[in-house]
């Protein structure tokens, strides 16, 4: 109520500014009301659709798992130069030992192995087999050495006390780091209290390395470790899996050590990241460029055949009397009422080698029985089936644009001396271009991301990039690569849309009216 009276007051002042502000207020209320109307849908889409897609696309560059799982190794590897052609130093292996021992407890080493396996095959099994062995490394010799030297080393409470002492922490960095990680692990994974549990071997190993580095803590009993027989950790690893001696494995780990990576995207375009920079993949591993090109070329062919087949039908629809046009329209719309899967399966029956079409051709005598046409499980099958399935999306916009073309245009052209063809080509066709544009955009964008039909009738030569994306999402679980491929596809579509806008003008696209 108060709002209304004050609004009326502003208006009666007839002052320009207050009139404007009250108008704004009125409009704002309208805008808020409009926003409220779409808010449920907007929120639903935002939460259930846009946000997950955005998250999914982020996976295409995300590489958190490597630095999160083996942070010490990545740090130690910075010193190492892959060009030497030698495996990294003992220092790196020691850091890797700590990381892997922790990761094995958390069971994250297999996931890391899968991640790195995308970049270099074989790494996954190395991680798995080494993970099984890492608890049984000979480093228990150090543990025994310390506990034999002084019983205090075998007392969990004593360890907890040392590690609470800032002086000890400052003088023994490796031990502190290892113990903290172990303590965290004990709490998180085993629900135990660190002060009651014996520290793991890798903590003693870290202490040994600290002491060998000349770091000592005054609070600890002095132990002379230099006389001990050293356990060579790199040998332990190579013993578990000789792949660890291969510098290329380490180069891969080093290259993909960052939090973010361009690796997935490079992989998407048949490139790979090596320590020496970006390189093309070996010929037998190139697949995605071919797939992208095939997706685009087939989509263009499908769009083209949709135009060729759809234009005459749309023309007929637009120029028939209403009654017959309605019957024809139902025929056009009929496929929409049938499941996509059913239609595609029908094509499978029709197109296969012993299928209906081949049988008829053989029966007529056009094709020899021993030389039946290959119509399915190749690009031909994909084009035939997808043209059929996407045809309504071409016909409908074409029809609605043609419906608006005044029939007197063609009559006028003919009355001025144009032949039927000239009247069509110079007058009717240019006016129907917006419909072709709208239909082509629709069909092309639908085609470029199509999945089910190429999957069922495309075989290996007729599959699209989307089939590969689906494979990486559901079978190989390489979501990062799937996300990168999806992002490239999205950018491709947007770029084509932009190009189309520049060439044809999006204002010229009409879906009707």
């Amino acid at each position, binding site marked *: 109520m108060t709002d209304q009276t004050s609004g009326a007051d502003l208006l009666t002042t007839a002052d320009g500014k207050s009139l404007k502000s009250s108008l704004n207020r009125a409009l704002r209320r309208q805008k808020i009301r409009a926003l409220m109307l779409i808010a449920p849908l907007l929120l639903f889409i935002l939460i259930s659709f846009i946000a997950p897609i955005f998250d999914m696309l982020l996976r295409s560059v995300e590489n958190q798992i490597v630095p999160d799982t083996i942070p010490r190794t990545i740090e130690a590897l910075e010193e190492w130069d892959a060009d030497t052609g030698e495996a990294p130093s003992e220092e790196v292996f020691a850091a890797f030992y700590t990381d892997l021992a922790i990761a094995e407890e958390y069971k994250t080493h297999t996931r890391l192995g899968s991640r790195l396996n995308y970049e270099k095959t074989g790494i996954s099994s190395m991680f798995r087999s080494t993970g099984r062995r890492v608890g049984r490394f000979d480093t228990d010799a150090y543990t025994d050495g310390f506990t034999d030297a002084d019983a205090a080393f075998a007392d969990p409470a004593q360890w907890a006390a040392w590690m609470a002492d800032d002086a000890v922490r400052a003088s023994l960095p490796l031990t502190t780091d290892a113990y903290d990680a172990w303590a965290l692990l004990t709490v998180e994974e085993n629900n135990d209290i660190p002060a009651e549990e014996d520290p793991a071997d890798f903590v003693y190993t870290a202490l040994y390395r600290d002491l060998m580095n000349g770091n000592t803590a005054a609070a600890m009993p002095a132990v002379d470790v230099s006389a001990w027989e050293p356990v060579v950790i790199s040998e332990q690893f190579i013993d578990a899996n000789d792949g660890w001696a291969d510098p290329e494995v380490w180069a891969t780990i080093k290259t993909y050590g960052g939090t973010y990576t361009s690796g997935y995207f490079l992989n998407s375009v048949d490139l790979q990241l090596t320590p020496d920079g970006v390189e093309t993949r070996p010929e037998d591993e190139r697949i995605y460029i071919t797939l992208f090109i095939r997706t685009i070329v087939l989509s263009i062919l499908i769009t083209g055949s949709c135009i060729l087949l759809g234009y005459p039908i749309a023309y007929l629809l637009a120029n028939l009397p209403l009654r017959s046009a309605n019957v024809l329209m139902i025929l056009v719309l009929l496929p929409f009422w049938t499941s996509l899967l059913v239609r595609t399966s029908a094509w499978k029956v029709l197109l296969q080698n012993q299928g209906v079409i081949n049988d008829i051709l053989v029966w007529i005598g056009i094709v020899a029985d021993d030389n039946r046409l290959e119509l399915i499980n190749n690009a031909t099958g994909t084009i035939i089936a997808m043209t059929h399935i996407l045809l309504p999306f071409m016909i409908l916009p074409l029809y609605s644009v043609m419906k608006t073309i*005044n029939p*007197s*245009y063609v*009559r*006028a*052209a*003919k*009355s*001025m*001396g*144009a*032949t*039927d063809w*000239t*009247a069509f080509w*110079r*007058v009717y066709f*240019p*006016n129907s271009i917006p419909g072709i544009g709208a239909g082509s955009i629709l069909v092309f964008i639908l085609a470029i991301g199509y999945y089910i039909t190429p999957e069922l009738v495309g075989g290996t030569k007729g599959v699209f990039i989307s089939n590969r994306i689906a494979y990486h999402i559901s079978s190989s679980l390489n979501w990062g690569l799937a996300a990168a491929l999806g992002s490239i596809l999205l950018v491709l579509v947007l770029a084509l849309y932009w190009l189309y806008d520049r060439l044809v003008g999006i204002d010229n696209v009409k879906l009707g009216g």
Partner: protein
Amino acid sequence: MAASATDKAFVEFERVQKSYDGETLVVKDLNLTMPKGEFLTMLGPSGSGKTTCLMMLAGFETATHGDIRIGGTSINNIPPHKRGIGMVFQNYALFPHMTVAENLAFPLEVRKIGKSEREEKVKRALDMVQMGQFGGRRPAQLSGGQQQRIALARALVFQPELVLMDEPLGALDKQLREHMQFEITRLAHELGITTVYVTHDQTEALTMSDRVAVFNDGRIQQLAPPDKLYEAPENSFVAQFIGENNTLTGKVETLSGERCTVRLDSGELIDARAVNVSAVGDRTKVSIRPERVEINKDRLSPDAHTLKAEVLEFIYMGDIFRTRLRVAGTDEFVIKTRNAPDQVRLERGQQIEIGWLAEDCHALDA
């Protein structure tokens, strides 16, 4: 001799019939002869067959029966684009994807006329309709009247001998329409073009045409110059359709040559001119124009029959007075009197006597 014969019968419809569904005839037995240079209007209510006739002439519809000739040649089997007929459409049908100049150049281009000559002709045609500076515009950027001019120029640019116009002024407002009526007739006469003009607006038909063909029910009801059409309608449809008209019904009582007397259904006897009655006792509709009714008895001949009338309504319209009367049992009898200094202004309820000259009252078919 032959040339002059085709000049007199430049456009001919001979026994033309047209049916769309094979059951009803839209055009029934049409016969029409047009001399060269004539401006002929086909006038009629919608569905009367006038547009069908135009479309048959243009070649967009084929005659079911009969012969259509232009310049002595039968055109039944000539496709529209070879007929060389200029045409202006109801909604102008300017090509939206071409500029005005391209629109005008189109008929010249399809005739393979050279570029320089083409440009010259387009310029001349645009100047002719005073649209010289609009060549670069798109049709959508023009007003209705301007589009109309362009459509006209486009129909004339290839110098056709025959131009067809299908209600070209229907979408314009009254003032512009009147202006364009004048302009179209001026151009048609200046260029000596034979014009067939279709409209349902009788004012347009009367003011523009040399002759008007009134269509109804698939037939030409009357083909005559505007003045004859108005003053001497041949049947009650034409009388009703053209201008305002009072109708009284009755039976022919006496008939002698041009003259007859009619006993109205209400019992009165009136004088009339026998136009479309053949025998005594025929039922007839007599038709009299509102402005030909006389309320001053002194101006009528002494032996003229008169009718009693009661004034129901008097409307002041500026230049004329329009008075509604109750006459011979009808409440819709209208008379128009000129607003002259000596004119009487009738009042409601006044009882008067009205009459007319026998030649102004037409006894027509019932």
